[in-house]
Structures are given as C-alpha cells and as structure tokens.
C-alpha cells in the first residue's frame, strides 16, 4: 500500500511540483494550503509524512508543527520542512520544533529523494 504524504504550501506551483515528484516515488499525495487546513487533515487521518512550508497565511508551518507534535496522533508523523527560510538559525528552530528533516527551496527530485531517504520514507 502506498505511503501517504500531505504537501502543505500556499503556492500552487510548489504543490503541483511536489505532487509530481512524490507520486513518481510511489506516494499517495494530498495537499493543503495552510497550517490549519493541514492540522485538520492530520487529525482526521494522519499521513505517513508531511512536506511543510513555513510561511503561509492562517497558520504558518512552525505553529502547525508545534501543534501537531502536541497531539498523540501527530508524534509519529514524519515532517520535512520545505521552505525559503534557509538561514542556519531557522533550520535549527525548525528542527527543535520537531521536524525530521529540512529542505531549503528551491528543490528538485534529487533533493526530495535524498531527504525522504534520510528519514526512512523511501
């Protein structure tokens, strides 16, 4: 059975690109436009992993991650940040909040493969 991945990004272009790559890697892909939408999705049916943007309207990625990790059902979900927040301090902040890996945009298939492999998703 295919693993599920929730792509959370307010950019449609990024969602479409990520979907194409992840489907090619065998994932069943869902998407959300902001952290709140993503959180609601995760509470209904936690995916195997979340590819998470940081800067989004309504609820940003960092707040989503903290909220997800505070829930019992959200602790085992692999979360990989995928963001333009590329400075070292942001990377550390994201990892401290409970991310499993960190992608600095822009990304390509090679980066996605590498990072998903690092956390045992492929």
């Amino acid at each position: 059975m295919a693993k599920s991945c929730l792509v959370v990004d307010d950019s449609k272009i990024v969602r479409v690109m990520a979907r194409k790559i992840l489907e090619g890697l065998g994932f069943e892909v869902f998407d959300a436009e902001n952290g709140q939408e993503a959180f609601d999705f995760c509470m209904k049916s936690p995916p195997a992993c979340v590819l998470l943007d940081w800067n989004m309207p309504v609820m940003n990625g960092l707040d989503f991650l903290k909220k997800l990790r505070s829930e019992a059902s959200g602790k085992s979900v692999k979360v990989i940040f995928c963001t333009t927040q590329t400075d070292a301090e942001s990377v550390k902040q994201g990892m401290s909040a409970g991310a499993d890996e960190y992608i600095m945009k822009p990304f390509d298939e090679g980066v996605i493969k590498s990072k998903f492999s690092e956390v045992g998703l492929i």
Partner: protein
Amino acid sequence: MSGTQDAVRLREALTIVLKESAGLLLPPIEDSVLVARLRAACTSFRDRPRLTPYELLSFAQGERFEPAFRNLVVEIFSDKKTAFFRNKETFAYLGDNLLSLKTKKTATIWCAACSTGQEALSLGITWRKRMADSAQEETGTRLAVYASDLSARAIKTARTGHYNNFDVQHGLNVHDLLGFFDEQQGGGFWKAKDTLLAHTTFFQHNLLRSPPSFLPRRLDAILLPHTLQNFDASIAERVIVRLVSLLAPEGWLVLAPSEAEQYGERLFSQPVENFSDRAPPKGMLSRRAFVYPDRDALAALQRSREGTQDMSRQTSSPREPWMQTS
C-alpha cells in the same frame, strides 16, 4: 561540407582528443549540445572569437588544438556529477570496517575522481562521527584522505569547501549540515568546517598518469565510483590494474556496482564475501581477490610504477606486458 558531415567529423576528432587526453568516451549528447559546449569553451578561452562549426572542426583537428585548449575541452566534457554519501552503503561499510581501525594509526584513502569534493568530505564526516562514538581520537588514530580530479576547476572548488544550498542537500542530512558546515554570510552558501577539510589533500590528477609521489603506496581504499563508466573499456582496465597496485593487501577498490560487475569478473577472482566477516556492498572489490595480473606481474608493476606516463598511447609495454588487452 554539410552541417551533418561537420558534426560527424567533429565527433570523431573529439572522440580521439578525449580518449588520448583522459581515457574518456565522448558523452552521448546531441550535435547541437556538443557544438554549444565547444563554442562555450572557445569563447571562454582567452580571446578566441565565436567560431562556426567548420572552424570548430578545424580547431579540433588542426595543430591549433593547443594543450591549454585541449585541457579545456576535456574539462567541459568530463562528468562532474557528485553528491554527499553517494552509495550510502559504501560509507556505512567503510565506517564499520576501515574507519574504525583499532590497530592502525592512519587510515589512508584516495578519492581518485572526487569532482568538487563531496565524496572526500563524506569520508571525513563518517570518520568524525565514528570518533565521537568510540573516542578513538585519544589513541592518535587519524584519517588521511587524498582527493583528486581531472578538472582543475572542480579541485579549486573542493579546496574552498564552499557549497550552495542545492549542493548540500544532495546526500547530506540536516544534522550533518549543521554539525560540519558553517553558514556563509549573506546566506545561500555553506562552508565545510576546517576540522573536516583538514583530513583531505586535494590535487589535480589525470588517472592516465602515474600517481604523485606524495600519495601513500599502501592505501586502505581507493574510491572511484561512477567514473570508469565514462572511460574507454581497455583504458579503464589498465587504470584498475594501476590502482590496485597502490592498495594495501587488505585494501578495497570501490567502483559503482555496474562497473564492478563489468570489470570484476575478469580482474577479481573470488567473491568478495570471502574476505570479510560481513558482505560488503556491491561495487567494493577486495585487493585480495585481484587475480589479473598474477602476483609476480603485479610486483613488477609496483616496481615500475613510475614507468608508464601515458596509458592512452600505449597498449602494451615490455615492462608491463599484463597491461595488454586481450
């Protein structure tokens, strides 16, 4: 002469130049890409004007194909693709076996086609993480990595240890990025920490030439994955023979799995599993399994290591008869 004829002859000329200069095969690229790359080389080479395909051809065939331009052409057609921890299983195996040596004082490894240095730094990262685990640093055990590439530009980059956001995300996990690299001012770039760079000596080297004198002659491993696939097969075989002669008796030659399959059957006799408690990943060939040439011939090769200067021009030599291809 038609454009098609130009392209065919240009390919022929480049095929010869690449093989003679570096043992390389002309990559399977379209004519338009080939001409564009060559033109780029022309325009970046001193004050060369933009050349037509016909002029490129005469440039390639004629005496005007001077050494510096030849080097530039070889550089633009050589494969520089690399990544951190490419073939992860190899690094895990080396980490478990070679880089956690209990008895030796120095582990010596040569990355013989290191491109911009990611492979060499991956060895350093593996080593330092094992050190942290085992506190071997106190024993004085050290890692010495020698890393070379045909490309002067790639080596220049490798020496700086500078990588952009894109480079550091191919094969490197975020923990290793934060632990072994410093973000550069302005963002977008990372620099390997000096402690990591200190393991490695970078130098430009053409694998068809004799290895430099400062390279140790009993190396624990030579890493050359994904390189011989770009070589003319007969030259690749001779490169392997030379590299194996530089290995310690228990040393390893590391190729890509497909390359090990191609050359291993002929040059390496026994399954590598026979020489290790744990089966190494595909692509790792044990020096102890090397059978061609025989031991006497290999010893002679070691004695006359400095003899052959240019493998591409020499299919055999009185001193190195085993280099002859069958």
